């Protein structure tokens, strides 16, 4: 998934000495601002793929779960401070995070994709992208991939939010954007996304999305087993089909 920065907050969280709350309840945090994976509906309820998966996993583990919303920047510090026990928020497994949390097995795989205006050719090869203006969200996997692989030939524009990147694409300032594929797929189906389409093939960058728990917490194994189980019993496919007509595992 996108935002990769949490270091500053991680450092701060080390200072707070948490006390274990020994309850049977498993508290799960999600962000609530990453459609269609986690967002809030009109009534303020958390909904989305991540939330459905969380509920299915809890049912599989026969655990009593509570899902809470937590801002992205504080989501790992909050886990370490025992405000909740797991993060199911489309979080990528990265080296930096592995130093401070443990992850379950993946529950889906993120891919990157280019989006551009319909009817205009956007050749997403090194030669074809030369001199093009391509946008992405700052501090995301997509933004970094763009800089690392095309930074020398493409005019990279970095935005604070994904929405601002979409806005500039619609305004015609950008030839295309690079983003996580599934949220972009969701955006393309909205009214704002009319007139745009995916360009070229998806880029599989081996980005695994998994559940984060505190270091050494056995909960990771339980979640991994439950993911396996709902993959096998069809529950995963059922949830998947609610959001995407293709398997995102």
């Amino acid at each position: 998934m996108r935002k990769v920065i949490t270091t500053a907050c991680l450092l701060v969280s080390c200072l707070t000495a948490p006390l274990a709350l020994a309850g049977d309840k498993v508290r799960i945090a999600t962000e609530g601002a990453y459609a269609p994976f986690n967002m809030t509906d009109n009534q303020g309820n958390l909904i989305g793929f991540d939330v459905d998966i969380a509920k299915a996993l809890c049912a599989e583990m026969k655990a009593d779960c509570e899902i809470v919303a937590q801002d992205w920047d504080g989501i790992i510090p909050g886990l370490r401070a025992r405000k909740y026990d797991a993060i199911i928020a489309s979080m990528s497994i990265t080296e930096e995070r592995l130093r401070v949390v443990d992850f379950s097995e993946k529950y889906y795989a993120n891919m990157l994709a280019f989006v551009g205006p319909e009817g205009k050719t956007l050749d997403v090869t090194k030669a074809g992208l030369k001199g093009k203006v391509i946008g992405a969200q700052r501090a995301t996997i997509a933004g970094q991939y763009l800089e690392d692989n095309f930074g020398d030939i493409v005019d990279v524009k970095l935005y604070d939010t994904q929405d601002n990147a979409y806005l500039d694409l619609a305004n015609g300032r950008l030839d295309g954007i690079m983003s996580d594929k599934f949220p972009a797929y969701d955006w393309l189906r909205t009214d704002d996304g009319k007139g745009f389409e995916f360009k070229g093939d998806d880029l599989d960058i081996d980005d695994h999305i998994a559940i984060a728990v505190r270091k050494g917490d056995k909960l990771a194994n339980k979640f991994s087993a439950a993911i396996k189980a709902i993959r096998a019993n069809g529950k995963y496919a059922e949830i998947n089909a609610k959001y995407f007509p293709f398997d995102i595992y």
Partner: protein
Amino acid sequence: MSWEWGVIWEYLPRLLGGAWLTLELVAVSGLLGLALAVPLALARASANPLVRAFPYAYIFFFRGTPLLVQIFLIYYGASQFDAVKESFLWPVLREPYWCAIIAFSMNTAAYTAELIRAAIQAIPKGEIEVSLALGMSKLTMIRRIILPRAAGIVLPGYSNEVLLMLKSSALASTITLLDLTGMARTIIARTYTPLEMFFAAGMVYLAIAAVMILVFRLLERRLNRYQFAKRPS
């Protein structure tokens, strides 16, 4: 926690590249803003209410809304209209650089006009009366008496405005420009060293501000030299 000096040295050239853009934004929009502020201030100080009305509304709007909102309105707002996108203005409005220049210039013009207006009204009445008594035309009076006198009075306040603008220019990073702040944030996204990078960026801002303060101090001495001159004995 660990503090990495190495990462600051490694990325310092890129930070300084960002600082250059910051300086450019402040200098260009500062000069444009000043050029815009002088006629606004003169009109604002006019005795005629009809002449006063436009600068009053302009200053009221730009001082009363956040600079971030002004930047977004110009950058994202204007481009929502096809009429804008098809007009001759689009090659300019398309560029985040010029959108930032426009927003900063118009914003600083409002504040500066108000400073100049106050300075004009602070000129001792006697000096105006003397120039009238000498038979100066209105334009000559503005050129030879009012503006030079106002310039001396306005400087301390204006140096404040320029320093504020230096720091406001960080908002350029919200419309994809890689100014000092934008560059720092982009580097942080890669190195995970927010404390070091923001510290380094802060130090660069401080250095720029120090030079500006010095320049204004010298300018002040020069323009108000009569105040520093020895009295004839």
